[in-house]
């Protein structure tokens, strides 16, 4: 839903020509955009049929979206079959382009791997003496990947760190009493969680009530979106990320400020990263289509795609560079900081924010994340 809101704001502004410069030309390649919305929560098999329906029955020019990794994996081959230009906005799994080459499929946000790498680098800079780490994550591909990336990164940077407790819970579980007790007894130096949304908030409420955060450094790689709801219930000092430089981490450029204020005015809340991801995907479509269009003719999907490959463009959170997997996969810088609740203003803030360049936290082109981390981040450029 925030993703839909993000898409709507950007699409409207494109049609009215009210995006900040340099994107203030009206429409996409001179044409106005029409949004067709489909619910993603129907299961994978149904998504594939819906994708075909979008392509054929409703004759859309491009499909933009998808949060769920399973949908992306399933839809990608169909997109190629139907020659349908497809921009994935989020779906965090790195597997899409690691396992296959797709011609018509692009992802305009970074995948999951930089989250773990960023967290590990930041953590070890602040606490060089970390001895033990533990993880509490969802028992699903996303949670397993997030924990593995983080654990391996920490151990690649400091081989003597021991992972002493790996908790995996059911998605939507909601009850973490036993997990918190287990962590209280194991006493790791650091706890990593890639929880987000309702489960993240449930865990924070339950663990702060029992003082877990007083002795353990929290590393929350996807929790930033919850700070506006949890306010002072989210403990100060937790290391926190938002899947990239979005929301509180977004660069204060004219573009970024425009997106944030417009969204806040319309929906009353700060846009979460899914809204940024989606807005960024719609924007990428406009930029590539404008670039590919010659003399007002409607560009073919292949031309739009080619125009996007290797493109570097300013989006609402940061600069996006389509530089991986033959120009189909984006990388961005990453952002991380420490949570601090501003009592005077009754507002959540993040301090000690650090941005890591894209080439510092993303595997080089053609290399799988796991192998890259294991090999000690060869080719990483961090300055």
């Amino acid at each position, binding site marked *: 839903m*925030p993703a839909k809101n993000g898409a709507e704001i950007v699409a409207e502004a494109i049609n009215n020509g009210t995006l900040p410069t340099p994107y203030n030309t009206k429409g996409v390649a001179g044409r106005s955009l029409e949004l067709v919305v489909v619910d993603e929560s129907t299961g994978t098999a149904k998504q594939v049929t819906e994708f075909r329906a979008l392509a054929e029955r409703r004759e859309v020019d491009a499909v933009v979206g998808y949060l769920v990794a399973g949908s992306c994996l399933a839809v990608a081959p169909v997109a190629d079959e139907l020659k349908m230009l497809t921009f994935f906005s989020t779906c965090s799994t790195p597997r899409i382009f690691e396992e296959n080459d797709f011609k018509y499929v692009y992802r305009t946000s970074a995948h999951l791997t930089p989250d773990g790498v960023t967290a590990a680098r930041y953590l070890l800079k602040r606490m060089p003496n970390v001895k033990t780490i533990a993880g509490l994550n969802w028992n699903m591909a996303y949670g397993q990947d997030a924990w593995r990336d983080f654990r391996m990164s920490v151990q690649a940077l400091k081989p003597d760190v021991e992972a002493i407790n790996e908790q995996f819970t059911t998605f*939507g579980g909601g009850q973490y009493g*036993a997990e918190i007790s*287990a962590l209280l*007894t194991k006493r790791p130096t650091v706890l990593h969680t890639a929880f987000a949304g309702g489960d993240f*908030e449930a865990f924070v*409420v*339950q663990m702060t*009530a*029992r003082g877990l955060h007083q002795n353990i450094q929290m590393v929350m790689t996807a929790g930033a979106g919850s700070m506006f709801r949890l306010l002072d219930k989210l403990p100060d000092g937790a290391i926190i990320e938002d899947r990239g430089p979005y929301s509180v981490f977004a660069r204060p450029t004219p573009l970024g400020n425009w997106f944030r204020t417009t969204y806040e005015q319309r929906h009353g809340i700060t846009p979460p990263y899914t809204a940024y991801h989606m807005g960024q995907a719609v924007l990428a479509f406009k930029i590539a289509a404008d670039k590919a269009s010659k003399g007002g003719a409607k560009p073919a999907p292949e031309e739009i795609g080619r125009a996007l490959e290797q493109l570097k463009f300013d989006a609402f959170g940061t600069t996006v560079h389509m530089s991986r997997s033959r120009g189909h996969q984006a990388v961005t810088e990453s952002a991380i900081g420490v949570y601090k609740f501003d009592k005077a203003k009754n507002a959540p803030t993040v301090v000690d924010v650090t941005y890591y360049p894209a080439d510092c936290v993303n595997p080089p082109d053609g290399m799988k994340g796991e192998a890259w981390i294991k090999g000690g981040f060869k080719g990483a450029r961090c300055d």
Partner: protein
Amino acid sequence: MATLAFIVADGIIYASWLLIVAVGMTLVYGVMRVLNVAHGSLYALGAYTAATMVGAWFQRGYAPLGSLALLLAAALVVGLVMGLILELGLLRFLHGRDEVVVVLATYATFLILEDVIQLIWGVEARPAPQPYSLLGTTSVGPLLLNNYDLALIALALLIGGLSWWGLTRTISGKLLLAVIFDREMAEACGINVRRVFLVTFLIGSVLGALGGASTAPMISVSRGLGVDVIVLAFAVVVVGGLGSIPGALLGATVIGLSRAAAVHLLPQAEVFAIYLIMTLVLIVRPYGLLGHERLRKV
């Protein structure tokens, strides 16, 4: 040793929560032979209503302790209103139909309510954590426990005790048992079965909503809340024996302890623990731990 203490403590807390969530389902099944999938929706509705009310309560700056009473009020309102709608508007027309068909009708209700909830509250998560830390903490040796969790244990025992006492020690409870035993015979003896059903379903609905309302402060109420709870409640009810309240107590305890043990000793098994217990119990005791075999009639 410390681990064992932790397992028992965590297991009992989790079991209390399970019991509060599941007891209404087993009561309704025991009396009406309706396995109510929409119990999950009642849970979700209770949670959302409680979260909204608690949020408003603290925004106005009323006395914090009052929010605990507010949770009960939310459960009562949601349970009574939804219970009346569902029983009079739907279940009444399904008496006498196949048990599994009735399950499906409640499944359809669940689908409808899922979207209703989303239409009312949207997809944003709603935390209402204030009541959760109101009661402070207790440390027992190395254990630091939240008193709210301890209060849940008391609430679970209270609900379990009251239902048992009501069923076996009061006249209306005995009438209820008569209905459970043989509906036609009870009707012939002049018991108003319809009213018994209505009252039972209202109690069951309030209990379902109470499950959600009492959980709301410790979670962040969000989309899809009801789906996972249904299967958990099924598991508790089936392990204990469908329709048996002492069974639900036993089922909740068994599942609570095994999940806690899994989390402490073998975290990889957390996902399996509940279903494994449920399947094993069904294999060994097809009618649950305290269930009774059904008579076969010629």
